[in-house]
């Protein structure tokens, strides 16, 4: 088995857009990929800064997303504003524990996992840590994969409101919380996409 080498040791650099391995010597002054013309960088520039900025924005937006109501229902069951947590609680009480669990995972567990995981990745990268590099890379891939499932509640509220318009039985309307929640999903996805996982493996001296 030959030792594993990183790209810069062999005079190569990866184009992250199209996956082409480019020789550094052949790279022209404008640093464009010869195949797809994207800009090529050794590491994503300002990766940790961007990730942190989006992470803080995501955590901030998550507060109004949970405090403000996401949906307003009126009609037979009475007028009510419901928040995300309130909705989960209602499902739980009415015996639909499986749906309660599903929404809990998508709307609470996934965002929290993302906040903690990205925070951990940023912290360890900053510390130049060698701890659990493999596991941290897997963690990054999990964060990337679970990110967009949080959009679930936005879709449920939108579909419910679309169906319960001008109904005799009652109506449902979206409320501000859902816009904040949508923003949380977008911003945390941007945070994960800004993170360059290769930083986990870099040795800065």
């Amino acid at each position, binding site marked *: 088995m030959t030792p594993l080498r990183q790209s810069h040791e062999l005079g190569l650099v990866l184009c992250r857009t199209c996956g082409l391995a480019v020789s550094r010597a052949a790279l022209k002054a404008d640093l464009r990929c010869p195949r797809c013309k994207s800009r090529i960088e050794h590491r994503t520039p300002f990766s940790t800064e961007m990730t942190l900025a989006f992470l803080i924005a995501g955590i901030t937006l998550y507060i109004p997303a949970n405090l403000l109501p996401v949906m307003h229902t009126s009609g037979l069951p009475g007028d009510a504003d419901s928040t995300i947590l309130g909705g989960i609680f209602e499902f739980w009480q009415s015996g639909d524990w499986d749906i309660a669990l599903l929404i809990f995972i998508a709307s609470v567990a996934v965002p929290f996992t993302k906040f903690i995981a990205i925070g951990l990745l940023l912290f360890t990268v900053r510390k130049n840590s060698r701890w659990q590099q493999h596991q941290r890379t897997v963690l990054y891939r999990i964060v990337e994969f679970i*990110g967009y499932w949080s959009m679930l509640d936005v879709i449920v509220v939108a579909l419910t409101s679309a169906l*319960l318009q001008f109904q005799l039985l009652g109506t449902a309307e979206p409320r501000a919380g859902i816009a904040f929640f949508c923003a949380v999903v977008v911003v945390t996805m941007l945070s994960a996409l800004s993170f360059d996982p290769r930083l986990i493996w870099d040795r800065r001296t």
Partner: protein
Amino acid sequence: MDRRATFSKWSARIFSEGQSVPMNPILICRDCDTVYRALPLRRGDVALCRRCDAVLARYFGASVESGLALVCAAAIFFAIANLTPVLSIDIAGIETEANIWFAVRSLQQGWIFVAALGLAFTTFLIPAVQIGLLFWVLLFARAARRPPGFGPIMKLLHRMRPWSMTEVFLLGALVAIVKLANWVPIAAGAGFWAIAALTMVLAILGRCDPASWWSIAPAKT
């Protein structure tokens, strides 16, 4: 040579420096920057990074024809999903239907429309553009030609990939069914099944990594 089973941790038939391999392409791991020389993959093979287990390459079995067929199927499912109701409720003989566009429209209230925008992009616009661009690329590839705008199109497809949320919409529709079923008669329409099928087709198309798409129309650099 390591030729173990597909999907197992060590299924990589890809080796670091030092192997003499007829094929030139060099693979670099996106997640840990390790360099490998590519070996030809056989059906079902997945090349994994020895250091971090990232997928370096998959066997690219889809011919241009089957790719085109899948894209056409996706376009048809997408059309059905948007032209027929995904969900419908029936209250005292009055039927209300909903699909992706109805859902987007229901969020257009005051400044909540930013959520409508997010939903429109992720469940309608991006899947539509993906299907359209793939069709364009594959149509030219079938004639063994590189389509106009190939570079920018491939870049755009790469950028859009994380933002396509058809499968989340499917799950959302399921949750809405269970949520409303307690009070109103609710039914899944043809659009629901079309979205389910679309999810599967897009997943198959999405499995092909970008590097493989580039090799479809190699031509000049």
